[in-house]
């Protein structure tokens, strides 16, 4: 009986530890994501839309999950330096420029986590360390 109770307690403790680990990653994600939603509203939404839908052939949508996944390491530079030239998104060509936006690495990480996990994308947390590394490799 006693062993059973102790065993039960140990199992409970084990579950709690795992749950709290999971929570820490989860909390970090949520922190990035919710701050990112605000950055998105102030810096991106006017052009890219509340649902990341873009605007006709003028502004590309943010719903091309394959493009975003394949270019994950370049996204920070795109925001910081802007984009010029042709882009093919969802099979459509866009050739207008996106202006540069001088956001901090943290803000970029937040907004990338937000858009990377909205509009059908699943890129998980893109943290500030990753963004700083990506920014140092901007062309």
């Amino acid at each position: 009986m006693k062993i059973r109770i102790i065993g039960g307690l140990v199992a409970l403790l084990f579950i709690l530890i795992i749950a709290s680990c999971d929570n820490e990653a989860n909390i970090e994600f949520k922190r990035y994501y919710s701050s990112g939603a605000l950055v998105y509203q102030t810096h991106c939404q006017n052009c890219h839309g509340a649902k990341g839908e873009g605007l006709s052939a003028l502004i590309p949508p943010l719903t091309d999950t394959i493009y975003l996944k394949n270019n994950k390491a370049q996204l920070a530079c795109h925001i910081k330096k802007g984009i010029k030239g042709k882009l093919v998104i969802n099979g459509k060509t866009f050739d207008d420029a996106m202006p540069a936006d001088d956001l901090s690495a943290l803000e970029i990480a937040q907004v990338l986590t937000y858009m990377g996990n909205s509009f059908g994308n699943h890129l998980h947390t893109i943290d500030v360390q990753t963004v700083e590394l990506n920014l140092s490799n901007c062309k």
Partner: protein
Amino acid sequence: MKRLSYFLGIIVLMSACKSNSDKKLPIYGNRQAVTKTVDGKTITDTVYQTIGAFKTINQYGDSITNKSLDNNIYVADFFFSTCPSICPIMHRNMLKVYNEFKATNGIKIISYTIDPKHDSVAVLKKYADKLGITGNMWWLLQGKKEEIYALSKNYLVTKPEEDAKERFIHDGSFVLVDKQKRVRGAYNGTDAKQVDQLIADIKTLQAENVK
């Protein structure tokens, strides 16, 4: 009890009818009472403020003046094609108005560029193509800068301003103009809900013109 509920029901129905037929949009701007003599009788008439004359070119290179809009209900806004701030959201919302009425005669949209130096006919045509608009329902208009800026007063919106950082600061309003060229409503073009109201008000205005 049953009778009472019938009675109440009738009252509710009647009041519903009443509010529908009475719905009328306000007329904005200055007005003047003008007294004139018609057939020997003196009558007083109200003269409302209207949109004045302007000369522009649309995205097809056609000359467009105030006269081109005769007998049309129209929505006007001010924009520029390279606008980084509020224009995309304005025109995303304006597309809703376009799609709602593009098959209807007598309703138009005009967008005056406030950067005529950059927004040539070719630039405006390209912008229209990319926006996905065709035909003559929505005109993008280039005119003389001073003339366009002065027009903002006619439409009762803030006069555009040139700014070092944003390049041009302008009002994000959509202005509803009736067949008599009077301003009948102004809506925040960046607010989807107000644009829905604009669509509803255009329908009200259409009904008013039928009578």
